[in-house]
């Protein structure tokens, strides 16, 4: 079953195109299909980044602290060779245990902006976590703080991850709860998030923000552009070239 993709999310589509088609997940197609698929697919343009200056859509509040990546995507769903299909499993175990979990609340269906608490995405480095949130439909997360590996993974995927104060998060969450249909706007140039009458300031490290705003978040392409420097640098490392003395 195809996953729900947010309209106009060119960035998400670009990312999805990187991965294998869904039929590779079918056991009967394995492993012969893998080779076929890799062989037949046309080479893509290496520049897949898109400028991301604002994210606008409805919001979803989940103001809990220390939400770890095992909760975002339970480990059993890491038994896969693609990220396809992870969207429907986001917060699966939490949802099963909490009938009022926001990710099961129809009012928040189709939301783009998550309002979260402190240390969001702590624990495992699994990129499956932000992948599952992105495939669920999220394009931005506003939280009190992020675990660092999770934050880096968001950057790799073009997911906007900005920090706000606890007080402001409570105001944003209240505004979203009061009117789930209200548009939440995350403005990376102004570093503001607004919903209804509320507008709050947010923070993001310059390097991460600049990458999104300029569309320069194809890190692989940038790293490759310095290949000669990397080769030269490798020649300076003792453990590759002999120790001093």
């Amino acid at each position, binding site marked *: 079953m195809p996953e729900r993709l947010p309209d106009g999310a060119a960035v998400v589509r670009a990312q999805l195109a*990187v991965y294998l088609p869904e039929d590779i997940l079918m056991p009967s197609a394995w*492993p012969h299909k893998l080779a076929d698929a890799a062989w037949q697919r046309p080479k893509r343009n290496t520049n897949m980044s898109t400028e991301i200056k604002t994210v606008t859509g409805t919001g979803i509040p989940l103001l809990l602290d220390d939400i*770890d990546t*095992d909760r975002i995507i339970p*480990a059993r769903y890491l038994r896969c060779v693609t990220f396809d299909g992870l969207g429907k499993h986001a917060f699966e175990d939490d949802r099963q245990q909490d009938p009022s979990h926001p990710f099961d609340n129809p009012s928040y269906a189709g939301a783009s902006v998550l309002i979260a608490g402190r240390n969001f995405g702590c624990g495992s480095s699994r990129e499956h976590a*932000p992948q599952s949130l992105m495939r669920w439909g999220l394009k931005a997360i506003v939280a009190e703080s992020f675990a660092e590996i999770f934050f880096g993974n968001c950057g790799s995927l073009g997911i906007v991850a900005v920090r706000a104060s606890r007080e402001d998060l409570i105001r944003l969450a209240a505004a979203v709860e009061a009117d789930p249909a209200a548009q939440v706007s995350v403005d990376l140039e102004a570093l503001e998030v607004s919903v209804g009458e509320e507008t709050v300031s947010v923070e993001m490290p310059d390097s991460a923000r*600049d990458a999104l705003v300029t569309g320069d978040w194809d890190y*692989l392409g940038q790293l490759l552009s310095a290949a000669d420097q990397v080769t030269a640098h490798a020649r300076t*490392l003792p453990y590759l070239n002999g*120790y001093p003395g």
Partner: protein
Amino acid sequence: MSDRRNLFNRVWDLHAVRTLDNQQTQLFIGLHLIHEVTSPQAFEMLRERGLKVAFPSQTVATVDHIVPTADQSRPFQDLLAEQMMTAIEKNCDEFGVTLMDLQDGRQGIVHVVGPEQGLTQPGMTIVCGDSHTSTHGAFGSIAIGIGTSNVAQVLATQTMFLNRPKVRRVVVNGDLAPGVYAKDVILHIIQKLGVQGGVGYAYEYAGSTFDAMSMEERMTVCNMSIEGGARCGYINPDEKTVEYLRGRPYAPQGEDFDKAAAWWLSLASGDDAEFDDEVVFDAADIEPTVTWGITPAQSVGVSQPLPKLQDSPAGEQVLLKEALDFMGLDEGQPVAGTPIDVAFIGSCTNGRISDLREAARVAEGQQVAASVKAIVVPGSQLVREQAMQEGLHEIFEAAGFEWRGAGCSMCLAMNPDKLQGREVCASSSNRNFKGRQGSPTGRTLLMSPAMVAAAAIEGKVTDIREFAGTPA
């Protein structure tokens, strides 16, 4: 002027290829460890762009997360696990990467295998698509966990972008009391600094307590740096580091080893090294420590009661209540005596030979409680072999523990080893998150391997210092 840089900054500077205007550093990676869970999509990204692995000699793979620890015959009963196994075999073959697979004899948890093979060395930058990569910092390396997009970047370029973190020196001085282990030290540090306390920092562990630790104990400490939010953790190399590495297969050999050792020791932070922050603990304040909640910071000394809501900061009460409700425990109750259903000894935190020896010392001549299912999972095939040469498996089996093959097992339950329903597990692993051990409602109590063994025998959380047969 003397070089007052700490080890972290020395190693970072050595590996900085270039720094962008936005302050991101393109960092050369000395060792890239790979496993079956976070690499298939990365190899596919390489195929997509027609790229090769840039430095296959600095890239080593093994299999651990999905490996069954009981029946390891192929094809695996779990078809998805079999697919992942097939994928890493194919990828490593096609891209020219060494794979230590189940038939190899060196297979095991990636963070046990790296040091054991001498791949992990001081002064290196080390990455792996796994957060417990921080383990390798025990050798005085910068070792960080990364996501799959980063894995693809490192495969293709042997570099990645990082912002230089600040460095906090975490000092612990003094002798550990009998029954107090490296696991208790790191659980204590996380309890005091919080699960987000390390965000933005690398941790340097320093002081006489760490100086006195074996390399395996240092690995246990560094392993859980990530649970405290730190980007990585490390300990300065010393003579123990050098002696651990001497003769290991991937370590420098002969004259080269002596030169390497001198270079390794020269990287250590000096007495006048500068740090962005420092915290100091006293080893005498640390007792055997047990987690009771759903984050690794929710722990108490085994003689202590659980916290009370009214005594906790207002901002923490929601999380506290969520944890108590999930665990089915009452505020203020003692943690000792909490009944357990399962005991798990193993993982990248505590699955090494010294861990198994300590647990076997406790288990020897005892019997696992009738109500408890207990398993011992060596961290690698070589740990397993060593333990069997020492007869540890016989001690465990005589006591009623199951003796398994090497793998991640019940630490994260991506394999057949899982909790069922609301079972409570005394576990030597690293995470007590909700659902972590495979049952969405399963409950985890983290503790040292010796404490897990004691809990298995008593059927409840037991103070190892009061457990019969433990030497004073």
